[in-house]
């Protein structure tokens, strides 16, 4: 009963938020014809309604994350449709639906940990195939595959796969072998190898923004392994790992190409038209927007390159106000923080949640802090808010993992009871 009530309550409030945002578009927005606003409103509300109706048929246990996902996706739709004047952003609408579908796929794939742990070789193979694709198709200085009608960023798809690879390897911690005086878990070595290769590939592609995300996923996995029962991370191992990381970081900084160093120590305001063009424009627009913004579609930032992806936080700040932009980001934080309220029940699911959390926070940090010049600016997308199909689909997959962690699969226990009784009887006779 309370379930149905809270379901209804959630529906009402999600629609209310979208409604109030659309009202803001109507009253403050920059539109030439009212039909644009009506079309956008119809699409958003319709998507809400359809999702509410079909959601009960999914038959999983928790819906809060679903509601939150829908809330954020349609907010994103409204944001993106207002940049540079209200219009209906069909491409973004399609990617939103793709994200919802991929969320479902992620949920189905990941909820049964016994099953997926037997399939982990396929996950490794998947990462391998993606790496080969990057090697063959993107070229050394690009991260995109241009298919003509759309561009795909294959490195994005490695993120959920790496999270999965980490999660499926966690149970292997008990199968340790003694090799040359070290306790070795083969899976750990494989995960380390995969991460290292992926990071090297990203370096080769000059997709520097993705490296911290992969590193964060690996770090979360590493922490989880230390926490895992009987992982027995000796001080020896920790010191070796730490020193390897330190040496790698030092070598990385020494060998870093000049333009990376320039990015690290740049004063963007001394020459705002060159090095820090995007960041300065982003900061100016945030300042102009103030707390409450100029009104949807009334900003100037949509004339700056990557306004809808890399500096989207500033674009939203300008048009909707810093307050609203911050709250949108808080919603993103909240969706990955949901496992803190409703915790997963197994270590596999926990690791998955931690990996997703690491990937999301790292992406958000790189995007937001980068565009606001707190850290070097790298072209990273803000999950769900930025335009871009690859990012949208992979973010959807990762949220699917969180839903899976909250609603793990169990077979109907009633069948087992008979079996159990049967067995118990059998045992007693022995």
């Amino acid at each position: 009963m309370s379930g149905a009530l809270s379901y209804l309550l959630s529906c009402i409030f999600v629609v209310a938020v979208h409604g109030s945002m659309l009202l803001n578009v109507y009253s403050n927005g920059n539109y030439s014809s009212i039909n644009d606003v009506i079309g956008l409103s119809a699409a958003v509300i319709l998507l809400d309604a359809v999702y509410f109706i079909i959601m009960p048929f999914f038959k999983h246990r928790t819906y809060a994350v679903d509601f939150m996902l829908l809330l954020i996706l349609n907010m994103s739709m409204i944001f993106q449709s207002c940049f540079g004047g209200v219009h209906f952003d069909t491409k973004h609408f399609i990617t939103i639906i793709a994200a919802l579908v991929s969320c479902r796929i992620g949920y189905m794939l990941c909820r049964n940990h016994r099953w997926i742990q037997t399939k982990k070789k396929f996950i490794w193979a998947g990462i391998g195939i993606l790496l080969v694709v990057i090697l063959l198709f993107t070229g050394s200085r690009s991260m995109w595959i241009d298919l003509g009608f759309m561009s795909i960023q294959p490195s994005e798809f490695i993120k959920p796969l790496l999270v999965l690879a980490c999660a499926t390897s966690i149970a292997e911690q008990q199968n340790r072998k003694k090799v040359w005086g070290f306790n070795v878990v083969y899976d750990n070595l494989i995960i380390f190898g995969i991460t290292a290769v992926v990071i090297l590939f990203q370096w080769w592609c000059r997709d520097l923004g993705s490296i911290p995300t992969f590193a964060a996923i690996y770090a979360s996995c590493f922490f989880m392994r230390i926490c895992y029962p009987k992982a027995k991370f000796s001080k020896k191992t920790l010191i070796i790992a730490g020193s390897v990381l330190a040496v790698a970081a030092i070598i990385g900084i020494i060998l870093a190409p000049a333009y990376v160093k320039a990015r690290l120590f740049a004063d963007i305001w001394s020459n705002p038209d060159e090095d820090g063009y995007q960041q300065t424009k982003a900061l100016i627009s945030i300042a102009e927007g103030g707390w409450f913004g100029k009104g949807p579609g009334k900003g100037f930032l949509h004339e700056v390159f990557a306004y809808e992806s890399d500096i989207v936080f500033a674009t939203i700040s300008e048009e909707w106000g810093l307050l609203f932009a911050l709250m949108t980001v808080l919603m993103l934080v909240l969706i990955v923080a949901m496992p803190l309220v409703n915790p997963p029940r197994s270590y596999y699911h926990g690791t998955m949640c931690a990996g997703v959390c690491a990937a999301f926070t790292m992406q958000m940090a790189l995007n937001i802090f980068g565009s606001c010049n707190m850290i070097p600016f790298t072209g990273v997308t803000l999950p769900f808010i930025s335009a871009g199909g690859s990012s949208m689909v992979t973010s959807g997959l990762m949220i699917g993992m969180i839903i899976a962690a909250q609603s793990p699969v169990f077979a109907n226990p009633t069948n087992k009871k008979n079996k159990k009784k049967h067995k118990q009887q059998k045992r007693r006779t022995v």
Partner: protein
Amino acid sequence: MKSIKRCQLVMTLFLLGFLAGLGVLTARIYKDAPFYITHSDNYRLGRVYDRNKDVLFDGTKKIDKPDNYLIDVGNLIGDDKGQMENTLVAQNIDKLSNYSFNSGIENKNGKAAIYTTLDHTANRAAYDAFMGADGCIAAYNYKTGELLVCTSLPNIDPRHGYGGIENMKSGTLMSKAMYGTVPGSTQKVSTVITAMEILGQDELFAKSYSCGGYYMNGTGGKIDCHNSWGHGTQNIQQAVENSCNPFFAQLVEDGDMPLESIVEIYTRLGYNVSSGETDNEEENDEEKEQEYIDIDGIQCFKASTTLTDTADFATQWGCIGQGETLASPIQLMMWQSAIANGTGKMTMPYLIEKVTDVEGNVTETAKTEYSEQLFSKETAASVKQILLTNGANHYQYSIPGYKVAIKSGTAQVKHGAEENALLVGFVDDKNFPIAFCVVLENKYSTPAVAENIVTTMLNSLSR
């Protein structure tokens, strides 16, 4: 269970790290937004008013007034074009920000403004009284410190822009009252103060020297008097009224006036005294960087002179007001305030009465401040009497209607090719406490007269 708790801990760490970063980001944006906005194309500054709400600068729109309406205060108020740095607007540009993060850009309704103490009408009157001659005039209320008049010629109306900047007369883009000039005989006021401090009133009045048109000093230098017939034997009062150079040369050379004491009092008055020794000149340069009087961010030249030996030619001329002595008209005017107040403390001038932010809240109001004790009250009273007597005897008709204490000066510049007329003084009136300093450059080439300029300005101020 514990293992899941640990998993949640890892997530919490990631999220808290991110949220902390977000908090820092928000605080940084809130703090730095007024800086970011200065790079925006939509950003406009607020207004600058004179004391009667006359607009002297408006960042939002062009002031709809006749051409050259602002030519009297142009190089003091300045604008945001970056051409004139030592101006009110350039130095206080952040106070004119018509922006706050809470209310956004308010170009039309923004109330950010600087209310100055200037009296535009009096400035204009003084400007016109120069009749096109070069020079400058500054006047302020020596009780409160409000800078009422500060104009200089040549000048510019900033609304014209800076086209043809290479053809502008030198000094157009700087308010001359803020920069050093040769003080001429107005320097003798400082020397009288010094002598009064060292000798005391009775002893100084007891001293008398004779002037025969020139004086051969102890080192063989010849100090000429402007009156080649000589003034005969005079006491200090007569010497000030006659502005007699030989008298002051002999006073400085007097055995009762040790060099250290002179240097000490000059330094206390604010002079940058250099000893003039060539051996360690570089060292001196490094030690004594140019100091400035700060008037609401505008840098005002202090004063400097060279004192080596009381019998030295250059030192004596320095104490008379030629040679290497330089002082800014504002500084000369401020010394008058220390005399006029009778306290021996200067009233520090200010230009900004109050500042309002974009919402109209007053964020700053001026306070009257005083300098350190420069000289004793007794000295102030005596010097005030000398100058008042001078004013009563010589300026009763040229500056009619005011009880003025005054000292004139003539400064030779460009190696004697031109002579500047100077007047420093104050009105000794509780209800009209004005100290002033006027410099009229190349006085023989213009029909303008320094006394008339002062009179015009005082009339305009007292209207």
